Every structure is written in structure tokens, then in C-alpha cells.
């Protein structure tokens, strides 16, 4: 407790805690369900809710990990998350900073150009043609470069950069600092929270991205995990018409849930490490000094 904070009343504190706790239950519950189903034996699963598996079984995970290319997919996606996010951040930070600077003739036009990209997405066909011209088809880089900057993330980061006190930048300018110095020594250290947030957004997007892979990737060894696993889950949601549904048996619900767990676990593991960057304790201040 800091000196200036009054102590909340008992009722206030506990009302807050209880209601948040209830909220937490509502949020966690589906995940508990998913976990429970994924560890169930196929015959115990019906379409109703289970919280604890009746006959715990690793059959679903066994199937996914041994009968599909899941492990390979995880390798590919790990690469995408590490290298991809690095490139994402590099490109986004530089452009966001550039657009946050004042008195740059033409920056408003560029900003509008970026805004427009939020409103209209290129068609699949033309995206494919461009990537093909760059000879990136069926290359891992086709999953990184076309998505190098997410316009939304760029605009949000720019907004955060613009929130940094002007005085700091101006005094650095007076000292003769170059743009790079300002970025590196002033903007970035003060933006830990927003950088962490944007990096998280990018990393999660890289991990979950399958759409680009559908279009650009042909070789099975380059398929990211999201695509491999989506194939499994997707099957159950294909048209019910006889001709199509007669082509295969959809996998058991347990397998589909195991897929969801496998896709989500890495993110859950990484998130706590990033969390400390965008929350702050009661005592820490935001400006150094």
C-alpha cells in the first residue's frame, strides 16, 4: 500500500474479488471442458458437458502426435514465431516511430495509406501472384514477409509512441541526438509495455496463422502447426452433403480437443513471462528518474 492510497472497505475488496472470481470461472470453464474431453476415451464422449474425464486416456494425444505431422508443424511454427516476430517488430517499430514524429511532410499521406489497408484486404489471387513473382511460393519466407506489418498493430504502437512526453524528445534533439538515438535511448525504454503487447500480438498471430500457408505452401515439411491441426478439426465441419461427407470419417471429438490443447499450450506457457511487462506493481513508476 502506498501512502496516498486509502484502504478500500472490506466489502469493496471482497465484492471485487468474488465477482472477478466468478468471471474467471466463466472464462476458464470452457478450457476445463476442452482439457477434460481431450483426456477422455472416445467412447465416453458425447456432445454434453464433461468436467472430469470418466476414463482418462491419452489416446487422443497419442493419435495426434504419432499419426500426424504435428511435431514437424511445431518446429516450423516455432521458427515462425521467433524469426517472424523479430522481423515484425523491426519493421513495425521503425515505421511506427517514423509516423509518430511531428513535422514530417507527407507522413499524413502515409498514415492514410496505412489506414486504408485496414479497410480493404487484397484478394487471394493477387496476393498469390505477388508472392509468386517474388519467387517465394513454397518457401518459409512466404509466411513471414507478406504479413510483416499488421496495420492495426502499427497504428496502435504509433499511438503509444505519441504518448511519450514531448519534452524528453525535444531536449534530446537539442542535444543533437539523431533519430536512431532518440528511438533507441528514449522511445524504446519507455515503451516496454506497448512493445510487449505488440510483440505478443504478433507472436500469437504467427503461431495461429494458417491462411497464408494454405495458399503459399505446397510441401508438407513447411506446414505450420496451425494448418496441420486445422485440417484435423476442419474435417468435422465440412458440408454434410453425402458426396463430400462420404469421403472420410471425421475424427473423434477427443482428438479435436487434443488439437486445441496442443495449439494453445505454448502460448499459455509464454504469456506469464510477458505479462510482467504490461502490468505494473503499485510501487513502480512509469518514468525513469
Amino acid at each position: 500500500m502506498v501512502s496516498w492510497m486509502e484502504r478500500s472497505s472490506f466489502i469493496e475488496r471482497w465484492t471485487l474479488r468474488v465477482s472477478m472470481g466468478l468471471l474467471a470461472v466463466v472464462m476458464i470453464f470452457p478450457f476445463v471442458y476442452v482439457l477434460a474431453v481431450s483426456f477422455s476415451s472416445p467412447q465416453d464422449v458425447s456432445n454434453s458437458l464433461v468436467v472430469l474425464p470418466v476414463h482418462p486416456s491419452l489416446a487422443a494425444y497419442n493419435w495426434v502426435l504419432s499419426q500426424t505431422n504435428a511435431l514437424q508443424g511445431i518446429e516450423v511454427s516455432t521458427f515462425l514465431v521467433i524469426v517472424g516476430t523479430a522481423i515484425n517488430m523491426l519493421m513495425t517499430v521503425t515505421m511506427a516511430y517514423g509516423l509518430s514524429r511531428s513535422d514530417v511532410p507527407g507522413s499524413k499521406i502515409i498514415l492514410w495509406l496505412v489506414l486504408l489497408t485496414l479497410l480493404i484486404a487484397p484478394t487471394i489471387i493477387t496476393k498469390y501472384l505477388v508472392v509468386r513473382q517474388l519467387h517465394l511460393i513454397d518457401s518459409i519466407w512466404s509466411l513471414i514477409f507478406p504479413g510483416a506489418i499488421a496495420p492495426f498493430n502499427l497504428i496502435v504502437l504509433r499511438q503509444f509512441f505519441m504518448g511519450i512526453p514531448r519534452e524528453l524528445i525535444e531536449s534530446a534533439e537539442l542535444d543533437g541526438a539523431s533519430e536512431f538515438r532518440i528511438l533507441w535511448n528514449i522511445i524504446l525504454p519507455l515503451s516496454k509495455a506497448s512493445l510487449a503487447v505488440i510483440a505478443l500480438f504478433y507472436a500469437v498471430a504467427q503461431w495461429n496463422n494458417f491462411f497464408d500457408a494454405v495458399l503459399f505452401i505446397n510441401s508438407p515439411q513447411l506446414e505450420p502447426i496451425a494448418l496441420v491441426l486445422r485440417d484435423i478439426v476442419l474435417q468435422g465441419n465440412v458440408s454434410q452433403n453425402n458426396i463430400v461427407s462420404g469421403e472420410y470419417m471425421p475424427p473423434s471429438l477427443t482428438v479435436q480437443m487434443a488439437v486445441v490443447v496442443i495449439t494453445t499450450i505454448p502460448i499459455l506457457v509464454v504469456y506469464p513471462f510477458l505479462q510482467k511487462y504490461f502490468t505494473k506493481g503499485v510501487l513502480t513508476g512509469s518514468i525513469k528518474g
Partner: protein
Amino acid sequence: MTTVNVLSGQTHDMHETHAPPGRIQPEQPGKAGKRRLSQRIWRRRWVYLLLLPGVVYFLLFYYLPLLGNISAFQDYSPYLGFLGSPWIGLANFRTVFSDPDTWIVIRNTLEISLLQIVFAFPAGIILALLLNALPGQKFKRFMQSTLYLPHFLGWVIIISIWQQIFGGDGFLSHLVIGLGGKPVDLMSNPAFFQPMVTLQVMWKESGWSTIMFLAAITGIDMSLYEAAAVDGAGKMRRLWHVTLPGMRSIIILLLILRLGNVLSVGFEQIFLLRSGFTTDVAEVIDTFVYSRGILSGQWGFAAAVALLKAVIGAILIFIANRAAKKFGEEGLY
């Protein structure tokens, strides 16, 4: 009420301006003497270098492919390509406007968007404020980690789970039957379609959106709270005068962007829910374009709608930004 900026010793009157402290004030024209354009460009030459990779990226991967939207004016066939497909001028646009379903679809989209802006948008903010006010570090961290979980589940699973709770053979229905009532089905009742869609979005995304708002709250100078408390401001007044203003920039930005995108309500969720309802209930612009445009091979139609959406969205962003500025907020640009 004045506060002291710890760093520079400058005093700053909290009530002086609307804008939260530390805001960059746009340069007034004519203020520092008119500089020549070429001088200004030279002064900021390194900024252009920093902007270069991004600009190249957008040109290459967004604007070049956007040329493909020329197919909006063609009877486009992938095999014939852009050069070989016949030119039909505004015919695709005429098809869009003459189809009776178009207006139904626009209405549905706007209604759902409105619900999301009114309910789902503030939900993240409120949740972030609640989280911020939570006593106890550990509990706070724990809550944060749980709230974002639904974001990762993917619509397929979420809708399947909601079906099992609220559907005709669902948990809720059996509960009601057990209490002596009749079966309840919220998932195929058209009256509940829009509320359920909104609730699902709130449930899935509120926790995730708190991340951004919490990051904004992190950026608020603690000394402002101190000063406000010293001046006798209680919790609610501190919230109103310190916390919210500190988040204002991000909130306004997100609101403007959301308004600009009012014609998009998320394809996958609606697509998965679509089959249980009639067109006048559940079809939105994106699903409409998917079935009439892409699945039917009417690429020109799909491109025409995309162009229309972009133009309308741009106009909306422009208006929203203007409005924000009129209210004394700082807009997007």
C-alpha cells in the same frame, strides 16, 4: 490543481487542458516561422529512412495486390486473368445494389456492429479498470491470465461449447426441464441471434482487449495519482481524472478504427452460426460476399463489394476523426 512533473520540475495545471499531461501538441502553423518545404524534409531525412522499409512493404504486399480489385469492373475469370477477362464496367456494382438481399445484409451487419460497439467495446475497458483496482498482486496476475483464455479457443470450439450449454439439447435446457419448465433453445432462436453473437464476442475478446488498456494504464505517471490523492480525490475521482484520461488516447483510437470497420463483424463466427438461421437473420456482408462471390466464382462481385466497403470505411474514419477533434480529443492524425 497543479502537479509537479518529477523529471523536469515543470508545473502543470491539471485542469488547464482537456488533454492528459505529456501530450504532443501539434505544431501550430506559422508558429516557429514558416519553414520551406525542402528544409523541413531535410531536417527529418532520417525519419524517411526509418519509414522506408514499411512503405516498401505496404506498396508491395498491399497496394500492388490491390490493383487486382480492377476485377470489380470485369467479369473476372482466374484462367483468363486480369488482361483476358471481359470488361463490364459498373455491372457488378449494379448487381450489388439491385439484389434485395444486399440491404438486408447491410442492416444485419450494422445492427451487430452497433451491439458490439455499445457492449463489447466498453467491456474490455471496464474489465481493465476492474483488474487494475484488484487488491493483491498474485490474484491480479492470476485473473489476468485466466481472462484471456477464451481468445485462444477459436470459434469452432467456442460455438460448439455454447451449443452444448444453450442449445436445444443443452445444459440450460435440461436444467429448465428439471425445474419443471419446457426445453429452452437459445442457439436457434432468431430473436437471440444478435445478442448471442455479441455475448460470444464479449466473452471471447474482453479479456484479450484488456491487455492493451492495461498497457495504457501502465503508462500513466504514478505521481499524478499521488497528487490527486493529496488533493483529496477519492477512488472514483482518481479514476475519472487520472486513469481514464491516461487511456483516452488508445480508447479514442480504437473507437475510430472500430467505426471505420463498422461494415465488418467477423467472418468465421457468423459463418459457423449461419446454417441454423435464415438469411434475413444471420447473413452479414462478409458471409454474403463469400457465398455469392467466392464460392460462386463471381470474383468481380466480391471485388466490387470490397471496394465499396473500403470507400465507406474511409469516409467513416474521416468523419469519426473529425468528430473526435471537435470534442477536443486528439484524433488519429
